[in-house]
């Protein structure tokens, strides 16, 4: 038998108190994400130089006051490229997550609600998508549509749909079996209204948490596609492109790839931590 009977009734205050009690690691994650987002938003104002069109005479300069992180083999200012590169590097994962949610969540809800053959067909379909490596899909799309952010985003989004749908379906199945959902059904609410007004809101926290975590993964995956040349076309600024800047590496200039790589890893971690906190805010790590 449980011990606590009368929980505090002022939910507004508990929310702020909970926010204040967040572990420091979560605050660090939020700070990292905030810096990246601000950098991306205000890149034109913050960047000391243009991210492209650098002078070949300035190639591979060391760190200095005018080039805080030095320049790459093409003579572009690395800090400026990092700031501008934050835009596709963050927008890409955002679209990946939105697209995979848009397709995955309705599939999951339909699957969990209908069960039976609907569930089986959706399940098989997802298995099929699951089998294709995202690199292969990306290559296919690039062949058809040409290189660019769109192709990469589409490829990763497709690869993420089964994952999103699976996790959401499992949670939806558990929620669906709870008596309050049965009560709605018995009251005669339509399936759509139950799904939108009861099921989805109660799954929202879990879905947002998963989306945050997949954001981190998508960031890394997109960078990987750019790195292997299936994503954004160099010399356009992008972190994946920067990591794959072989010309610099050949010259022994690791500043650009290192800086971009660290940005990717840091942000990826930050999103994973944030996602974990959202899914279980009371857990202390």
């Amino acid at each position, binding site marked *: *038998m*449980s*011990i*606590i*009977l*009368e929980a505090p009734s002022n939910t507004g205050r508990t929310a702020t108190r909970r926010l204040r009690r967040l572990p420091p690691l979560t605050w660090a994650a939020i700070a990292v994400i905030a810096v990246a987002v601000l950098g991306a938003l205000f890149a034109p104002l913050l960047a000391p130089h243009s991210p492209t069109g650098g002078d070949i005479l300035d190639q591979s300069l060391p760190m200095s006051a005018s080039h805080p992180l030095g320049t790459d083999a093409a003579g572009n200012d690395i800090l400026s490229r990092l700031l501008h590169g934050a835009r596709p590097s963050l927008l890409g994962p955002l679209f990946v997550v939105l697209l995979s949610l848009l397709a995955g969540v309705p599939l999951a809800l339909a699957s969990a609600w209908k069960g039976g053959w609907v569930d089986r067909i959706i399940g098989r379909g997802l298995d099929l998508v699951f089998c294709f490596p995202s690199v292969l899909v990306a290559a296919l799309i690039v062949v058809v549509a040409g290189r660019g952010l769109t192709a990469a985003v589409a490829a990763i989004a497709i690869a993420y749909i089964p994952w999103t749908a699976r996790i959401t379906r499992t949670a939806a199945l558990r929620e669906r079996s709870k008596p309050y959902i049965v009560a709605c059904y018995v009251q005669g609410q339509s399936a759509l209204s139950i799904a939108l007004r009861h099921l989805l809101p109660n799954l929202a926290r879990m879905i947002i948490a998963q989306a945050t975590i997949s954001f981190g993964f998508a960031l890394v995956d997109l960078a990987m596609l750019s790195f292997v040349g299936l994503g954004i076309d160099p010399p356009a600024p992008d972190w994946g492109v920067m990591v794959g800047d072989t010309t610099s590496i050949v010259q022994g200039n690791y500043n650009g790839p290192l800086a971009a790589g660290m940005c990717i890893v840091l942000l990826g971690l930050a999103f994973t931590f944030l996602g974990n906190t959202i899914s279980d805010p009371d857990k202390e790590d």
Partner: protein
Amino acid sequence: MALLELHDLAVSAGRRRPLLERITLTVDSGEALGLVGESGSGKSLTARAILKVFPNNSQVSGRVTFDGDSVLDMDASALQRYRRTQVAMIFQDPFAAINPLRSIGDFLAEGLRVSQGLNRRAAEERAVQLLDSVGISRARTRLRHFPHEFSGGMLQRVMIAGALGSGARLILADEPTTALDVSIQAEVVLLLDELRKENDLALLFITHDLDLAVAICDRIAVMYAGRVVEDRPAVQLYDQPRHPYTAALIGCRPAVDERVDRLASIPGNPVSAATAPNGCSFNERCSHAVDLCRLELPDLTAEADGRVRCHRSVELAETLVSGRRWTA
């Protein structure tokens, strides 16, 4: 000196939130004490405190002594020995209390090896004996079975066998029959009762069901909001309750042999120690409360046959009726 003694045991979560307040209780060898209360009363916490298991970040004061040794002062190895060989706990849900991937034989034998230092062969022989003694037939074959092959009642018997095998002198049974069917419940409590008497064990029987507690306990301590409010011999407590809460608790349970026009009920909700009002914790729900009850917490005072925590217990002695009698 009794086998188990709790003296002024207080537990709070952090510094602010009290969970148990100055619990003083004793259980002696061969004695069965029923710990009865609703949710928030702290009865399960009390049982865990006896094993020196407390919620995270809790503050503890007071004493728990087992056979003269202070449990709260035990170091890790003494505590391990105490938990393995002196006390056994039986939980509400036996399926959650046993490793589902190991056979019943492994479960019993491991307990015997660590508590009694038996070798493999001897442990198996003893396990067979134990299953026999809790009324499980074909014991030798049963040893190779897994928990999911047992019914709830059967598995609870296995847990009791494990408790017996450890040589424990005190059994803590926390709602051991709540998850079982009525017919099985009777068998399991009977088994507990018989084994306790045969082996001169001390039994702490935790339940929300006062009728069940009276049937197998010598003495009953009724708890409310983290405090003991009445502690008296079982049948006397039932027939002639001295605390208004005890009386109300007996009176509000519907009876199987008669339908009443309207059940006596206690207004409001049960409170926990943290949410209890000033004065007597029960005053807001008590039909006998006077001003004093709202101002001052009554002591747990000794009476002729036990202890009662009520300002008005003496003057109400004749008036308090539960409407039920245990003895015809």
